[in-house]
């Protein structure tokens, strides 16, 4: 199996789906001739031409709106927000229209739209190029939010998102783009949206997280194993709606749960995960549910020392995991 990077998995999935289905097209800022600022759509313009790889104006509400309209008309658009931070002007389109069309029209209409957006920090990108925005959308029924951690999951889940008949927000960690590599089969496959995945089996502590933090947890677990601490790691993969069953199972497995997110702590995805666990697992819990997350400040700072303070990293994760194991 070829080993490719996280971003190559994105490109691969797009390419395969565009070859597979004429209705699939991409649109976004600089996705065409330039191949995307991160090069996620590299080569698509050459292969599929300007009719299926659309460079749009700098107007995110239009990117989302055009996508919604085309989707309702029967197309399968994949819209790109250049940075997740820029999605804000499109919130009305996404939340008020895309998420609600099926419900509002009593199933007459639906929106098979995928919106891709790079999120996350640790790239010295400062305020408007580092945010995690998933929590903003995560109480909007009608939307699905997918945040894969590995190249394998990226390809399988992006393909599943494109084939989904309802809108999916597909958030890609921009630091993972070239940092994370993994084996990805050339064959066509999809992975189920709404299913979490056990990335590591263990018996002392349970880590539930998503995105880049999965790798931090895996690294820390590797280290802690030498000290005799066995970590069970659940990758949410889809952060909305949550895979309650897997969360409950993972929490019950060890009774000691650490939830990790790069996003601000309060009101984040992991807060909801915590609520699910406390609703369902009281008698299996052996420690308070711990949350490790970014501080509650407005955004990722620019100064390197401050960014390091905000950003999640393997050391912070390892420390929290050890603390929980020792409880």
């Amino acid at each position, binding site marked *: 199996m070829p080993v490719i990077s996280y971003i190559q998995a994105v490109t691969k999935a797009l390419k395969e789906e565009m070859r597979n289905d004429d209705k699939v097209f991409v649109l976004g800022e600089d996705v065409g001739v330039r191949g995307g600022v991160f090069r996620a759509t590299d080569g698509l313009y050459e292969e599929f031409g300007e009719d299926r790889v659309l460079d749009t104006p700098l107007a995110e509400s239009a990117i989302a709106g055009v996508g919604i309209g085309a989707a309702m008309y029967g197309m399968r658009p994949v819209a790109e927000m250049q940075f997740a931070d820029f999605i804000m002007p499109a919130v009305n389109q996404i939340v008020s229209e895309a998420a609600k069309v099926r419900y509002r029209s009593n199933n007459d209409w639906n929106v098979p739209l995928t919106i891709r957006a790079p999120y996350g920090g640790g790239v010295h990108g400062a305020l408007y190029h580092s945010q995690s925005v998933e929590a903003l959308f995560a109480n909007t029924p009608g939307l699905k939010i997918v945040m894969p951690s590995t190249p394998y999951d990226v390809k399988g889940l992006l393909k599943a998102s494109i084939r989904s008949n309802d809108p999916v927000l597909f958030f890609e960690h921009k630091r993972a783009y070239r940092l994370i590599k993994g084996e990805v089969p050339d064959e066509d496959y999809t992975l189920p949206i709404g299913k979490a995945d056990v990335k590591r089996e263990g*018996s*002392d502590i349970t880590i539930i997280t998503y995105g880049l933090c999965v790798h931090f947890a895996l690294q820390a677990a590797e280290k802690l194993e030498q000290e005799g601490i066995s970590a069970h790691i659940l990758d949410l993969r889809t952060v909305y709606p949550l895979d309650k069953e897997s969360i409950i199972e993972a929490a019950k497995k*060890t*009774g*000691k749960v650490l939830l990790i997110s790069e996003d601000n702590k309060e009101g984040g995805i992991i807060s909801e995960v915590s609520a699910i666990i406390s609703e369902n697992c*009281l*008698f*299996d*819990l*052996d*420690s308070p549910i711990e949350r490790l997350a970014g501080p509650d400040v407005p955004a990722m700072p620019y100064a390197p020392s401050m960014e390091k303070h905000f950003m999640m990293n393997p050391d912070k994760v390892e420390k929290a995991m050890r603390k929980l194991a*020792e*409880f």
Partner: protein
Amino acid sequence: MPVEKINMPQLGESVTEGTISSWLVKPGDTVEKYDPIAEVMTDKVNAEVPSSFSGTITELEVEEGETVSVGDLICYIEIEGKEEDSTEEKASAPVEETPVPSGEETAKEKPRFSPAVLTLASKHGIDLNDVEGTGRGGRITRKDVERFVAEGSHSQPSKAEKKESGTTQTAEKQPSQKKSEETVLESGDKEIPVTGVRKAIASNMVTSTTEIPHAWMMVEVDVTNLVALREKLKNKFKQEEGFSLTYFAFFVKAVAQALKEFPELNSQWAGDKIIQKKDINLNIAVAKENELFVPVIRDADEKSIKGIAKSVHTLATKARQGKLTSDDMQGGTFTVNNTGSFGSVQSMGVINHPQAAILQVESIVKKPVYMDGMFGARDMVNLCLSLDHRILDGLIAGNFLQKVKENLEAYADDTSVY
């Protein structure tokens, strides 16, 4: 010459307060540093409080017998001249010198268990005192319990024995769990975890029987008239009211009336006093499968027989549906138990702690009885009374039973249930 404060020292890790049992100094006395100035009694140790300074005691702030928190001021001392180093040693010095039992016991004083640990312990009938904790501060983790279970029960009895000879207070508190350590499970035996209501019953029963010196007496009552009366009324009553007119309602009424006359029975033991309750709130026992509830009929003495029958009906229905509220269960002052409904003709009730007595109404049985110069078939019933002998004596209890008997035998053809 500066005046310094001497505070209550920390006598052991978990000790938060102590009682000054006696002062060893009085104002004006001169003491050397480390001289004992007072004897202190805590729930852990008896110790002497050493002076933190050399000087003259000026004022005692705490009376003998008074209990003060750790860190509170207990007296003032005037220090002679050259004190530079004394301030830093204020009050904290005596910690090591006091005979604190042992670190292990201190840690075990206030163990905190996670829900997972408690769940596992109750599932497997484990006494957590036997489990060694490997978590932070010796906390018992879920894994510790799992390991303990996995290691098998063979190591359990020996530890349990050791434990029992050492301390007894935990055994007293959890009598219901002790049993499982001694019994051996054979194949095919079924283990039923003791939880919820069963556990509460077990614990209450042990409290009652260990704390209350029970005495017992029984009277036989002729309820032939009552039986006739009820036979006459029951169908019409059921039609009109929608619930049954039970014998039990008549008995409860008769007991409530008698309690009004003998309030001694309607009282509680409270250590140094007996509390006579004004309200007559009767607990009645209601069984639901393997659970037993004792909900309360409030102000039973103010209710008609119909009113009581209705209360009994409501409470029994609620119990069966699992809808009894804590309000329904609280405030009982005396218990009437309808043991006759199980066919019993004689029983020794366990008093519903902290009440003074419990009355068991047995089955009504037809018997040949010699009266008015001949034998006749009469409906007879036994009333069994268990009483707290600290509160009640045979005489008063006997009089009370006689009163109940009178009330019951006074039911006649013309008695109104309304």
